């Protein structure tokens, strides 16, 4: 194969994004399963607790957040695993591009394919928990920022658990405690949105976590993947 000149960072990122998109289109189950999981888990709460919407509304922030947290963890298991076993990640390392940058592109693709659909779905799932649709903006804002930070945190965990047998359970054990701040601020923003108050303060805190994650997590994820590929 003849390559006239090396791809720029932006081109490389675009190639990664396109590849993830194509893979998702060819294997839609990987994208749809976490969404179905989110819906099923949410539907369990009225059945296991009470069908009274007033009571469900009180626990709705927690239900939505724990559901979204578990659904994105489910998807994170596949973030690097297939690419590690078929050698794609090794090609990333050898490509001469910054691994941090490529993994960030991959994580962005992952968020677009799981975090964003979960976010768009949450207000509709909220309806079955008695959450008014007027709260949709706040709920979606919180989940968009929160799932973004989760994807970044999870990329570290997914990198660290590469090559670990039964890595899925371990991935949850590693990622969930680190996700406590996201859960706390996210559930609070959702609660404020549901009660009709302004969730701005909590959203700012979520936003700062999202920015902090964006600056540090890709570096840690690249270090983790390098170790995992040894």
């Amino acid at each position: 194969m003849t390559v006239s000149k090396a791809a720029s960072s932006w081109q490389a990122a675009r190639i990664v994004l396109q590849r993830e998109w194509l893979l998702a289109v060819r294997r839609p189950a990987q994208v749809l399963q976490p969404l179905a999981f989110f819906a099923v888990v949410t539907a369990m709460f009225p059945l296991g607790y009470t069908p009274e919407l007033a009571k469900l509304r009180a626990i709705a922030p927690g239900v939505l957040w724990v559901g979204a947290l578990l659904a994105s963890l489910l998807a994170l298991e596949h973030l690097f695993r297939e690419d590690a076993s078929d050698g794609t990640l090794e090609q990333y390392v050898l490509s001469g591009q910054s691994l941090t940058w490529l993994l960030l592109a991959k994580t962005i693709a992952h968020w677009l394919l799981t975090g964003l659909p979960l976010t768009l779905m949450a207000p509709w799932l909220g309806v079955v928990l008695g959450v008014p649709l007027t709260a949709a903006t706040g709920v979606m804002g919180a989940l968009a920022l929160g799932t973004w930070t989760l994807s970044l945190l999870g990329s570290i965990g997914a990198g660290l658990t590469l090559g670990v047998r039964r890595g899925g359970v371990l991935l949850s054990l590693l990622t969930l405690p680190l996700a406590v701040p996201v859960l706390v601020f996210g559930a609070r923003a959702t609660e404020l949105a549901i009660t009709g108050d302004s969730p701005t303060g909590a959203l700012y805190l979520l936003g700062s976590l999202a920015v902090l994650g964006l600056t540090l997590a890709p570096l840690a994820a690249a270090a983790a993947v390098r170790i995992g590929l040894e």
Partner: protein
Amino acid sequence: MGTNWAWFHRFGSPPHVYRLAGLLTPWFAWPAALSILAALYGGLVLAPPDYQQGEGFRIIYVHAPSAWLSVMIYAVMATAAGVGLIWRMKVAHAAAASCAGIGAWFTVVSLVTGMLWGKPMWGTYWVWDPRLTAQLVLLFLYLGYIGLRSGIDDLGRADRASAVLALVGVVNIPIIRYSVEWWNSIHQAPSVMKMAKPSMPMEMLVPLLLMFLGFTLYFAAVMLVRLRAEILRRERSASWIREALR
């Protein structure tokens, strides 16, 4: 820079550290035993009962030092892990590995003593108090670290992967503590009883400080023993082991 750093590079040598740890252990273990015994006498016999909490307050002599150690050990572990990662120093990784179990147990001790204290004071074993909650999350962080370490068969990879996790955890712990405080301040009024009163009388305070010292020395002693065991395990095929064990 050569000679100035020789003392540091010697810490990269397992036989040197093994010998040094053996020499240092009694210097930590005996002062630890003495100060813990003195603090126990001071705390359980000499100190007066608290005017509000009665005799129940005495659990602080175990609870507070354990809580302090649980956090400090994570910092020590992350520092050792960072040194191991940056200078590729195997002994530092061994030190980090020997910290994890001790730290997890001190976290358990602080949680259990906190619950035992809570039963008479709050009327229930568990309250979602910010400090108890943060300790619980810390325990999960330790469990994740230990789980990751045992999940990877290759020692070198286990060392480096768990080191990255320890560093990620150390960045996260302050954020977790802050978020839990914030969460608690929203959902319930701050608890009336604060353990650390600035007005604590000297008869209570001195044994407590002595206990902090004793626990910290105890950690140092146990960590050195565990470090030696860890080095032995890792270097079991090395020839210097036979010399050292003779």
